[in-house]
């Protein structure tokens, strides 16, 4: 969605090289994304320019042994749009971050394109599902998981397997736009199930506004 003003972000990561690399990727994006602040601690997202940034790009491991899930919860409860950018690739961590209200979860193995798209999508109040997260959703066997249609499951699996929406579209005989719609529907279903968070409510409100879901469905 076209923005009148550039999207602004705050980068929270304990590795300076990662912060510099992410900042470079964002500023080189089309359109460029402004890095309002960055630091090795979540406090940078609560003060100064970081407090008003559109999107928080959060590393889950900030030097300590314990993942920063508490920090993530505080950010989402305050309505902040968070993209988790983590070294960890296990499904459980990804699903937990979604449960806590993160709009996207990316592994650091996933490149600049996915991070840029996740950031722009989050700034627009929408969820982005990269291939690794699609795999986590497809492999989710928890009791609280929402019921997905056969087509939605196919889309998740194909997207996880190919990393190309054009390829998924060719395989399933649908357009890449329809692939995106399915992925959004899936994320809305996840937002409607499980623990509630301010960002989930915002995501649902956005989905109603976009006509993806009706208020009666909630």
């Amino acid at each position, binding site marked *: 969605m076209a923005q009148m003003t550039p999207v602004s972000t705050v980068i929270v990561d304990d590795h300076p090289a990662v912060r510099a690399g992410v900042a470079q990727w964002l500023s080189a994006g089309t359109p460029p994304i402004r890095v309002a602040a960055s630091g090795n601690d979540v406090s940078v997202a609560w003060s100064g320019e970081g407090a008003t940034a559109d999107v928080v790009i959060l590393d889950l491991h900030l030097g300590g042994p314990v993942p920063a899930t508490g920090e993530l919860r505080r950010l989402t409860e305050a309505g902040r749009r968070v993209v988790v950018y983590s070294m960890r*690739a296990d*499904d459980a961590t990804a699903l937990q971050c979604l449960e806590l209200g993160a709009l996207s979860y990316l592994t650091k*193995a996933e490149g600049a394109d996915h991070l840029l798209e996740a950031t722009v999508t989050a700034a627009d109040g929408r969820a982005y599902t990269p*291939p*690794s997260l699609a*795999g*986590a959703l*497809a*492999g989710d*066997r928890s009791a609280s998981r929402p019921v997905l249609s056969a087509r939605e499951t196919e889309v998740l*699996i194909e997207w*996880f*397997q*190919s*990393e*190309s929406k054009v*390829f998924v579209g*060719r*395989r399933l005989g649908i357009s890449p736009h329809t692939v995106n719609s399915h992925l959004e529907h899936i994320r809305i279903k996840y937002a409607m199930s499980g623990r509630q968070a301010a960002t989930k409510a915002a995501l649902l409100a956005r989905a109603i506004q976009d006509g993806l879901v009706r208020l009666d469905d909630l």
Partner: protein
Amino acid sequence: MTSDGPGGDGRPGGDGRPGAEDGPGRAARAEDAPGGVGRAETSGDAAAGQMDATMRTVLLCVTVVLQLGLSLGPLFTEEYRSRPLATGAFAALACVPAVCSWWVLRQRPLPAAVTAGGTAVVLAAAFCATAAVDPGRRFQAPDWSFGLVQWHLLLLLLDRIRLLVAVLAAHLTASMGTFLVAGPPDRAAIGAACTVAFGAVSVQAAVIVISRLLRRRSREALAVADEHDRLELRVLTARQWEQHQRTLFAGQLGTTLPLLAGLADGALDPRDEDTRRRCALAATQLRRLFAENDETPDPLVHEMTACVDVAERRGVNVSFAVSGAPVTVPAQVRRRLTGPVATALSAARGRARVSVLRTGEAVRIAVVTDTDTDTDSGPRPEAVTTADGRVEVVSDHYGDFLRLEALWRR
């Protein structure tokens, strides 16, 4: 590229021989299974039963010889208070080995009814025979029943040791009791009685101990023999499994050895694209084969990682992702899943996406890669139903891209 499809990669275990992938450990476990224990117990019981049958045959002969050889003479030559009573008791006692011989000579255990009835007859006959003897002649020649009935009891109750000891003790106590109650015997009579009783008890005790000892030894001998047989079976199974593995390995090398020979003698040009592709396939298959024998918590991912590693060493940019909780995949199924994937991956030119997805219903391994193989070569679609579920391989070309998925429905 050679058309080494899923069926042509020399998959070990592809011959469908059950258990081939499990190795000697399977045989060892089978021997240690509850069923194996049950068999050992059964054979031990059989050995004990056989020993009891042999002992009963010996006891039958001893009882008949003692009754006719040592007791018949005094019955006719000695004086009794009631000869008919003594004769009746003798006849009743003689009936017991006669009846028992039906089962004993057929090496069968005595029925409970025969044991119970026989014991009652023996004790009643002992009481009558003792009552027929003059109290002053107890434990002497006319009192032939004292030493005899214990052999009858041994014959009847050999496999019921506690009951046998109890009945023998009761008989001895009753005999000594009636002897002492009948009138105050003199010291010489008591000494003689004790000598007779001690002699009889010693012999019976020796018989009981010997029978128990023989029974235990036969059990142990049979257990050792069983264990020996089990070990022999394990060794044989291990050898066969090793031989099978060698054969499989040789089958795997079947495509590799001619390749190496061709490279060695210059018949194949390492710069040739087809030769390079064949080398890539052979290397991937060998790495997968080596990975198969590693002990890892997630063998499927371990084997796929080995295949990915070979591709990366060739310079292919591989994106490898694993999702879903690990599930146990039998070795035979793993080969059917990873074989075609390895073949597809060996044809990758520059980029490949490899993914492993475990859901509640299925395990899927997929490769999407750029390749210049045509649609007639490379992995072929197939669907195989194994003992552990159905394995399907689906392969499609999309321009320069090959997509292959191997799926196991549990």
